């Protein structure tokens, strides 16, 4: 697995502090049903947190279905519009991700059909059916869980792990150390500590060890 992502251009959203809800949410992690319940009680912060948690997932599904950035942005808006109207039905879902993936996938499909290829070129796979292949859903869910786990470790660990993950071709500890303001010699030990934290969260979220 390689990437052409140069370290210096990692988006701030990937390495920066993630703001989770406003002061009202108390900054603590809430599972999906708790957030949906809070939305139903009229709390904007709970909705904000759902959008923060799943916006990237929905956008990813759309981009990897072959949609342009603009169309993928429309899919994000459409999917969250549907989710908002469907909150009552969604409150029993222990994981929203599977519902969101399927809904995003169908929105992509719909958009692709409607556009008739004008601004959208969908993968044939997507055009041919209205439902995503199971293995795709599993992969998207796993990616979502990794992002959720990363969001739950402290900012410094998140920044370091993300930088190292994206820099796996040619480690430039110097550059990463400089950017994160830590001594080069502490990167190895800090990675080990941070990854053990991430593993704990992954286990809490039910991510299997082998995959």
């Amino acid at each position, binding site marked *: *697995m390689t*990437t052409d*992502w140069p370290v210096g251009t*990692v*988006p701030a959203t*990937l390495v920066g502090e993630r703001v989770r809800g406003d002061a009202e949410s108390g900054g603590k992690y809430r599972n999906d049903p708790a957030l949906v319940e809070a*939305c*139903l009680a009229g709390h*904007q912060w709970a*909705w*904000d947190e759902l*959008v923060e948690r799943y*916006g*990237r997932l929905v*956008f*990813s599904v759309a*981009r990897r279905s072959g949609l342009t950035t603009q169309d*993928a*942005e429309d899919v*994000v*808006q*459409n999917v*969250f*519009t*549907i989710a*908002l*109207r469907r909150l*009552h*039905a969604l409150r*029993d879902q222990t994981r929203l991700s599977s519902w969101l993936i*399927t*809904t995003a996938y*169908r929105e992509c499909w*719909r958009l692709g*059909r*409607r556009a*008739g290829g004008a601004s959208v070129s969908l993968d044939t796979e997507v055009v041919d059916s*209205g439902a995503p292949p199971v293995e795709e859903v599993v992969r998207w869910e*796993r*990616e979502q869980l*990794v*992002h959720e*786990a990363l969001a739950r470790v402290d900012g410094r660990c998140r920044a370091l792990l993300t930088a190292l*993950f*994206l820099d*796996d071709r040619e*480690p430039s500890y110097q550059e990463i150390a400089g950017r994160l303001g830590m001594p080069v010699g502490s990167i*190895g*030990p800090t*990675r*080990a*500590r941070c*990854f*053990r934290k*991430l593993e704990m969260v*992954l286990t809490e979220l039910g*991510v299997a*060890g*082998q*995959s």
Partner: protein
Amino acid sequence: MTGIEATEHPKDEPLLAYAAGELPSAEAKAVAGHLADCPACAATVARYRMARDAVVATAGEQPSPAVLDRAKALFATHRMPATRAAPDDSIGNIVESLRRVVAGLAFDGRMAGAFAGFRSDAAGEAYQLAYESELAAVDLEIEATPGDRWRIMGQISPTVATIPATVALTIPGGGEGPEAEADAHGFFSLQTAAGRYELEIRLPDLGAVVVVPDLVLG
């Protein structure tokens, strides 16, 4: 498990350096040898790579903050239907006979500016309808297909968890059209000729039918 194996475990640092492909080949070989016999260390390496691959795969796919803000802003424009939250009491009493609940039209995509956030459909060969009822909400996408056939794609969202559902088109005054089963997420798809229909959403778990009245195709 055993004390002997434990003393041979590589420390976390070299283990993760191995997972990241940073170790010189001699050391990498030694770690690889250990992994073959140690499921615990192999699992750590697998988890590291799984997390890395997930981050790498999605690296360029972050929506802009403006897109997220737009989605967050939807909340302020939405009225939570306060009365739909408590069907639990009533549901116990309706099992003995099939109860018909008529859904009301809540959204018509053919109306200009019908829904903030949806891009308008200039071409007009497909439109969206949304219906609400106390038992389920129903989203429909109506689309003309060649040969004056019409496709209805929809999603049922019960107010309590009660998929499975069967969806059937019926002709008012008698006559059955096509039927379909909704999937685990409530999605379904039907095709039929132009005409005037009722769409019945049969929810056997609730002993109820939600009816979308007066669905005119074509």
